[in-house]
């Protein structure tokens, strides 16, 4: 089975968020980046499990600059066989998707995996865009995935439960929690990763369809109002009269 896993980077989750240039740019100073947890913990690990069951190859792909190589090496250390970096800073989700689709076109991947969303911009767009570009079916938010080489059986998170789905032939899947358990790269994996191929390819031309023009910080909370534990009637009154939520 030939599997392509799309990996993106995101600021480390506890990063302090600030902006520069009149709030038009994200301030990257002091920010350390990690592999997007959905890509690392679920999509990549499930790909490795499927390879362990059925054989095959796993290629990790990232669209980004050379500073992303650290994250790509980590994917190789966890267990991808080889990697590709499309050498451009994607201008929007469509750019990232078009680059990945252009690489995947004609390479007969049985399965293309993405994370359900990148946790910085929470787009949840790139997977469905790749699928549409390649005219493949897309299953979003999959918390379970089995694949025997021809047919995939998935569980997809829906409001209040899951949906069991079967898909025959190649497909694109976005992974949500539950698809696999996080794996920590071991020493051997890290050593091997250094020798695994990381191909850098040029980007194709795309149109920029959306752009972020400014950022702002959300309104500060007014501060917490502490309630006497022996007076829960007061809390109920405030929820009813002041917050008007009950």
């Amino acid at each position: 089975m030939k599997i392509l896993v799309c990996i993106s980077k995101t600021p480390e989750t506890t990063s302090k968020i600030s902006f520069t240039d009149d709030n038009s740019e994200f301030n990257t100073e002091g920010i350390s980046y990690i592999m997007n947890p959905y890509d690392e913990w679920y999509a990549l690990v499930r790909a490795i499990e499927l390879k362990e069951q059925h054989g095959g190859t796993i290629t990790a792909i990232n669209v980004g600059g050379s500073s992303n190589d650290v994250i790509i090496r980590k994917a190789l250390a966890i267990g991808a066989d080889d990697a590709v970096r499309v050498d451009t800073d994607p201008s929007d989700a469509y750019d990232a998707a078009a680059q990945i689709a252009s690489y995947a076109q004609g390479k007969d991947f049985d399965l293309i995996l993405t994370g359900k969303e990148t946790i910085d911009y929470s787009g949840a767009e790139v997977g469905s865009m790749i699928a549409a570009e390649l005219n493949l079916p897309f299953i979003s938010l999959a918390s379970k995935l089995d694949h025997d080489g021809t047919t995939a059986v998935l569980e997809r998170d829906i409001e209040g439960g899951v949906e069991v789905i079967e898909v025959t032939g190649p497909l694109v899947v976005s992974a949500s929690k539950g698809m696999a358990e996080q794996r920590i790269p071991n020493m051997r994996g890290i050593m091997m990763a250094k020798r695994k191929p990381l191909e850098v390819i040029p980007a194709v031309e795309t149109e920029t369809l959306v752009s972020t023009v400014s950022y702002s910080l959300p309104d500060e909370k007014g501060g917490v109002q502490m309630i006497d534990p022996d007076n829960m009637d007061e809390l109920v009154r405030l929820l009813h009269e002041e917050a008007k939520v009950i």
Partner: protein
Amino acid sequence: MSVLVVADNSKGKFKKGALEAVHYGHLVAQLLGSECHAMVIGEADQPAQLGKYGAAKVHHLSDASYNHFDGQRYLAAITEVAQQIGATVVILNHSSAGKSLLGGLGVKLKAGVVSGANSLPDITDGFSVTKNVFAGKALATIKVNSPIKVLSLMGNSIPPQEVGEEAAVEALSVADPGSSITVKEQKTVDGVVPLPEAELVVSAGRGMKGPENWGLVDELADTLSATTACSRPVADTGWRPHHEHVGQTGVAIRPNLYIAIGISGAIQHLAGVNQSKTIVVINKDPEAPFFKAADYGVCADLFDVVPKLTESLKKFKAS
């Protein structure tokens, strides 16, 4: 020129977010001086009612083979309708279905996409909308440069309002491209409001000590008719089912009321809940970080204070 809103439904009933999306579509159409059309796919109770929220016309694809969500066939159907009516803005609910379709629609319509928009567009200089980024730590204004725009509306951003009468419903048939997707089964819990749609949520964390104590949480939730949630370690250790896990790696919610019991308020937890309108935190540690994100705080032993809160609520409900 028109605005097309896809009003998704579950087992024939419109989701709350679908009504919000229709009303939002109506407001966008007003801004642009165009008309709001709603599209309904599969069986639906009274599609005409979407007119009340602002749809001037409802297109209903009622063929029973569309009752189950199928990303491939839905995408083809929506694309066809959007092109037919010349939609310049297509609006989806930011639901499981919306998230599956959004990017694909962008590609098919050559449209820029904004997922999880939470405000009306600003059209003074082009077309831009805001959305939450960095797990709610910031708000970004995104400008869409393409002639056609595809948006999904974040739940609980725009309250749905009744503005009109029932709308005319037009039966729809579309070309069926076929599909390699088969939906085998839907496993949903009936009778409870699913977390992403819940207005009232009672959530608990490791402070509960063990699953045997959840009766306290359930009783409070029942009294409020609230949906229950939990922190990640609670789901990971199997005290509660995974679908209750809220936060950055779980479900992101924005109910009107979020009551957090015995949860420390780690940044990854807050990421999924800090958009709640009102947050109540019950924790015995005055230094718990959650208090900083709370509107109301109770610093006490949860085993003592939760039953008292439930009692007070019962009294309030009875009065």
